[in-house]
Each structure stands twice: as C-alpha cells, then as structure tokens.
C-alpha cells in the first residue's frame, strides 16, 4: 500500500462455485462449472454487487459478449470490496 501502486483486487471463491452463462439463438444457457475448454481464455472481467446467483446471471446474460462468448460468474471472497455477496464476471 505504501508504495502507492495498488489499484484494487479481490480473491475469488474456488472454481467449483462457478457458473457459466451464454446466449445462443436468443436462448439463455446456464451451466454448472467454470469454462469447459482449456482453449478458452479470460478476456476481461467486471465486478457487480447483487444479492444472489440468479440476479448475477441475469446481468451477466445482458453483457454484449454473452452472445458470442461465455461469461463465467464467480463469487468474490468476502473481503476487500465485498460486504454483500458480490459476483465477479470474467
């Protein structure tokens, strides 16, 4: 902190808590687990604060990338930014 370089950060709950969501042919696909393919890669992330998984999935599915990529939803560990169960989307 004293070095003044720290911008922000948070731990994530284990991948077993992950859920993926995508939109294909106008239909929302929700699946248990993190990215299935090792070829998939993290293209970006965002942090939202919502009360539960269903609400997180709803917002994640509205992201433009949901139409061609897959959005992984994971909870933040209860520290740093999180005072309520926040969700990280990557």
């Amino acid at each position, binding site marked *: 902190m004293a070095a003044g370089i720290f911008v922000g950060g948070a731990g994530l709950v284990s991948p*077993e808590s992950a859920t993926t969501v995508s939109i294909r042919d106008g239909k929302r696909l929700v699946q248990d687990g993190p990215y299935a393919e090792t070829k998939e890669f993290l293209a970006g992330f965002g942090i939202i604060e919502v009360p539960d*998984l269903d609400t997180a999935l709803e917002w994640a599915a509205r992201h433009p990338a949901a139409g061609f990529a897959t959005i992984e939803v994971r909870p933040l560990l209860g520290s740093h930014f999180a005072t309520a169960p926040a969700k990280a989307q990557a």
Partner: protein
Amino acid sequence: MSEPATHATVEAVMRRDYGRLIAYLSARSGDVAGAEDALGEAFASAMKRWPEDGIPGKPEAWLLHVARNKMIDTVRHRQVREQAVERLMVSDEFRNQEASEPEPIPDDRLKLLFVCAHPAIDPAARTPLMLQTVLGVDAARIASAFLVSPAAMSQRLVRVKNKIREAAIPFRVPEPAEWDERLSFVLDAIYAAYTTGWESVAETGTTHHALAGEAISLGRTLLTLMPDEPEALGLLSLMLHCEARRDARLSDKGDFIPLDQQDPARWSRSMITEAEDSLRTASTAGNIGRYQLEAAIQSIHANRARTGIIDWPEILLLYEGLVQFSPGIGPLVGRAVAMAESGHAEAALDSLGRLPPARTASYQPYWAARGHLLFLLDRKEEAKDALTRAASLTDDPALRAHLLKRAAELP
C-alpha cells in the same frame, strides 16, 4: 416417556417432516449443509431429552426451534472469521421470525426442489440432492442406486451444497418467463430417480430398480405443492404406469417378458387407475408436454387389459408428438417401433438408419428395435446380428437372456 416411544416419534417426524424442516432452514440460511447438520443435532437432542421431559405436543416445531438455534450459534461462531455481515443479516431474520412463531411450519419444499434442479447445479448431482434433502434418503443408499461408492456420492453432495451456499443460489420459485424450463429440470431429476438403475440392477430375481418408490414419493410431493401442473401430473402418471407392471416384467422362472406379451392380470389395477386419473386431470389443462405424451403412450399399452389389443397407430401418433418436444434417441427409437407395428416396417428401418451412429453405437434399445424390425422384414441374418449386439449392451441378465434367445431362434 420411554425410549422406544421417542424412537417411534422421531422416526415418524423424520418420515413426515424431514423435507419440510430442511427446506425451511435452508431457504432462510441459503445453506443446505448447515441445515442438515443443525437438524441432525436437533434429532440427537430429542433422543436425549424426550425420554426424560416427555415428547412435546408439536415435535416438529420443537425440532425446528432447536435446529434454528443451533444454526444461529454456528453462524455466530463463523462471524469471528470472514463472512460476517451477510451471516448477521441471516441470523437477524431468524430472530425476527422467532418472535412470531409460525404454525404450521411454512412449506418451502417447492423452493428447495427448484434449487436442487437449478441449472447451475451439476445435472448428475440434482437427483441425489433431491432424494437426500427432500426425502431424507441416506447417502449410502443413493450411492448404491447410482452405482458409485458411498464416498464418491458423499463428495458429490458436499460439493453441490458448498456451491449452493457460496454461489448464493436463491431459494425461490421461478418467474413465469423461465417457468417451463425450470420445471422441466425438476421433472427430469425426479424421473431420473425412477429410471436410475433400471437397466443395470444385477440382483438376481429382480430387474426392478432401486429408487422407484422414492421417485414416486417425490412426484407426489411435487403435486401437493402444485396440484394442477399438467406435466407434474403426467410424470406421476408415467411412473405409476411403469410401476404397475413391475411384477409382470418377469415370469415365475425369472425370464424377461416384453411389454406386449405381459399378462395384464398381473398388472396393478389400483396403480393403473391412479395413473389414468392423473393423466385425465392433466389433459383438462390443455397444455400438452413430454411427460403427458409418454404417459399417454403407456396408457394405450394399459388399455390392452380391457380391449385385448394394442392400438399401434395411436401410439405412433403420440410418438410423433413426443419427438417434437424431446427429439432424443429414446423417443426416436420408440417411434420407429410404433411405425413398424403399424405396418410400415420398411420406413421404420429407414428412420433408424438416419440416426447418428455415434448416438446409437452402444444404445441397447436401438439394437433391440433394429433386430425386431429386421425380423419383421424377414431379414433374419441381420436380425440375429442386431439382437446379439443388443444382448451384449445390457447388464440385466434377464433381458440379455431374452435377447439371446430371440437371436438363437433365427438361423
């Protein structure tokens, strides 16, 4: 109060109220595993206290009260560490509810069923989770029905319960927009309990699978929670129709008897009557679906008890409808058989030939159906090959013997 009386009461409450108590506690804490632990401790306290203090007037309310207090204590302990704020809110809610002690206990089992079959839950874990939380079936029994080790099943269940808590899967009944899909996940998980082990129970003298009774209980529970839902009625009807024939599936000598050759006198009249009533009630809603169609197909077979014949063209019509809803390999193979029995064996064989080989290669009913169709078309050598292949794909000794016998009758 004696210990045997305590035992009997505890068992009765377990049977009648277990799912309701777990549902109540988990819906308010978001923590299924914590609810199970707390209720387990409450049952243990009851075993200690009731013989001395007497059995309370409302044993389930007593258990709920004790379990809830235990959950609050556990939560308090954890707060010293990380997830403080969220848990505090939960325990506050608990406190408030305690002030106005509800009676009877609100029924949150529908929410629990929807959590168990939530799309974020591993599909392979949905049925075991339902059986354990809603009915209180123990993990070892579930494991044996699913042909995995008790340790592996316990691990799978622990993992999904952690996910429910950590990912904060909400205990709620889905909105109308997502209703059909979410309900279908619940129905599928219940039906999976019914079909689990159907093909693979190797106990001698029974081809009957392990969890049929539990699956029907789940189906009935669902209907007490949504009495007018046509697909829930269809699912119960389907399971009862199949269950009605349990004793007729094997001869006295243990030989497999195909459905169209079973003795209708050995079918359970009472189950068929209930199955028919459920299907009739479902049809009044005018909202057809996969399970109603499957039940209707079984209903036509059941009609043979009265008419002595099987109305195959009607069955074919129902399969045509079914493949619209669920174009899986099972309905497509069933449709081909109905087509052949309605006098279109050639077209039926063509339709089988169009199925993707990757799906059919190790699907036993496909090879049995193919063998039967080739037999009808008098292509005996090919029929023999297909039936032999079907026999190699089943673990059920009675069914295997039946298929091999049919193959042996061909040149």
